[in-house]
């Protein structure tokens, strides 16, 4: 951004080259983005199945009649469209209908601000190879992913049964938790690129250090995953959580929730959720490429060719990088087991978020220190040291898990065999304790008084045993 900073934000900070296209170019770009996204989704489904198949040493979809399996997802989609639709009796019908529509509609939104390439010429009109770009482009993506929560949680709620509801609630809590981490991971990118517009973030990653190799000087792209490595790692982990990908696919944990929020959906409404999920996979990869891997810019050895970063060619680099990231997502799915829900929340709130905040502060401090050559430098460094010390001091202690202690008491370990705990200890009932105390106050008999005292001390089932035994 030339007029960077507050003035730029106030004036709109509109990235160059957007907002003055002819209407039919806008129409072409919107429809092209829509079709490209649908094709990428169809590709992603087969790609995932084939790669998972390779990981598990089996063929995966490979029917020759359907182009060696590459048309499998298209066939599946068409088949689903002609299937019977079952709306359960318990469902809330209007919400049940609107939930997949929200999911499907919002899923396309993010792709509008992903840059696919530089300026190109369509029928003599010069336009950017990107549907549109605005000063707050990344906020549009975050807004779209927030809206996606509505589709999921409404689907779970409207189904009217337990598993979908649980899946929907889980999905909502998980997605908002990981959105915090994801949003924070982008702050460092904005700080370095001085912009929130995607095309300017890509442009900012072009100016790297130049390397002198003997006679000629070459240009190395400074992709942000190198200088902002912690941000990239946090973005990637939180994007997995945000997109409900393994190992964070708890909203659909089929071993515990049948199918999660989409259990009760069938026919094309099911396909719509499926589509939204795979569009999310494509969007996560595309955004990762845009923010941290130079967007549509060619990787280093190819970037030596002068034509690599102009015209229609860069769309190849963009798609290649995106598909590589989709491959990494599938690889993660093939490798990692699903985490537990408390582990998921712990990672999001107790690890990713504080690490991210500290990283932002360290980065900001380093930038301030690099800019100021006088004493402020030492002041800022001292500030960072004090912050880290404060962190260490204020860091909450790990709470003792009471359940493990309880388990140790119960497990008597009979004969070394794994015996299930047979003496289930029910925690003392407070009402019973009060009853015992009342009984102790009015001395009816000397025997009952003694048993009440011992019962209160022992607690639990011994109490009932004591009160039962006092009758004899």
């Amino acid at each position: 951004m030339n007029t960077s900073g507050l003035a730029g934000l106030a004036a709109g900070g509109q990235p160059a080259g957007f907002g003055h296209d002819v209407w039919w170019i806008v129409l072409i770009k919107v429809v092209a983005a829509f079709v490209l996204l649908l094709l990428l989704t169809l590709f992603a489904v087969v790609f995932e199945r084939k790669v998972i198949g390779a990981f598990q040493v089996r063929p995966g979809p490979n029917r020759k009649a359907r182009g060696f399996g590459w048309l499998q997802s298209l066939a599946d989609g068409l088949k689903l469209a002609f299937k019977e639709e079952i709306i359960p009796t318990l469902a809330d019908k209007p919400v049940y209908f609107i939930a997949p529509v929200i999911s499907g509609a919002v899923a396309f939104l993010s792709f509008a601000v992903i840059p696919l390439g530089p300026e190109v010429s369509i029928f003599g009109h010069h336009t950017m190879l990107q549907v549109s770009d605005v000063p707050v482009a990344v906020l549009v993506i975050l807004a779209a992913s927030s809206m996606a929560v509505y589709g999921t949680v409404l689907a779970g709620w409207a189904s009217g049964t337990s598993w979908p509801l649980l899946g929907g609630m889980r999905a909502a809590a998980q997605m908002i938790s990981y959105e915090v981490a994801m949003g924070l991971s982008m702050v460092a990118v904005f700080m370095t690129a001085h912009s929130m517009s995607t095309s300017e973030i890509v442009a900012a990653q072009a100016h790297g250090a130049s390397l002198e190799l003997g006679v000629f000087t070459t240009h190395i792209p400074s992709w942000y995953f190198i200088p902002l490595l912690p941000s990239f790692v946090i973005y990637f982990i939180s994007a997995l959580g945000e997109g409900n990908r393994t190992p964070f696919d708890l909203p659909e944990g089929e071993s515990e929730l049948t199918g999660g929020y989409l259990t009760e959906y069938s026919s094309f409404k099911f396909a719509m959720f499926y589509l939204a999920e795979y569009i999310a996979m494509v969007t996560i990869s595309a955004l990762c490429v845009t923010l941290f891997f130079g967007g549509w810019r060619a990787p280093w050895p190819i970037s030596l060719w002068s034509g690599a970063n102009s015209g229609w060619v860069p769309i190849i680099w963009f798609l290649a990088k995106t598909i590589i990231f989709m491959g990494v997502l599938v690889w993660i799915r093939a490798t990692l087991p699903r985490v537990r829900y408390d582990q998921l929340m712990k990672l999001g709130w107790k690890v990713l978020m504080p690490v991210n905040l500290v990283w932002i502060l360290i980065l900001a401090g380093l930038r301030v220190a690099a800019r100021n050559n006088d004493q402020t430098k030492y002041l800022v460094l001292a500030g960072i040291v004090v912050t880290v010390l404060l962190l260490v001091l204020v860091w909450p202690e790990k709470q003792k898990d009471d359940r493990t202690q309880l388990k140790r008491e119960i497990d008597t370990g009979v004969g070394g065999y794994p015996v299930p705990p047979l003496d289930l200890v029910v925690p003392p009932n407070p009402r019973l304790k009060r009853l015992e105390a009342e009984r102790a106050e009015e001395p009816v008999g000397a025997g009952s008084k003694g048993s009440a005292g011992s019962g209160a001390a022992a607690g639990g089932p011994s109490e009932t045993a004591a009160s039962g035994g006092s009758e004899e």
Partner: protein
Amino acid sequence: MSIAPYVPIAGLLVLGALFALFSCTIAPLVGPKRFNKAKLEAYECGIEPAPVPAGRFPIRFYLTAMLFIVFDIEIIFLYPWAVSFDMLGTFGFVEMLLFIVTVFIAYAYVWRRGGLDWD
């Protein structure tokens, strides 16, 4: 500031919405209709499915949503600060440091009180 660059974004949203609306409306009409009582019952939610919504729900979800609002607002404050960081200078850094430390105190408090635990 002009609204023009936002129009294509809205256009893609409308196109996606029309696609979703159209296909979700048309698909039930072209599919077969062979209903029976068992089909319309809840899937794998018990032999006698009980309608659970509108019942009690774990407070954790509510707490998480509240925490999300707090930290999302923090992020919203961080974004413009990050974009114009180099213009704000040391003053901007110290201001944001104070803000983050303030939020961090609340965060440590929530952590200690067990607000971030999911048992």
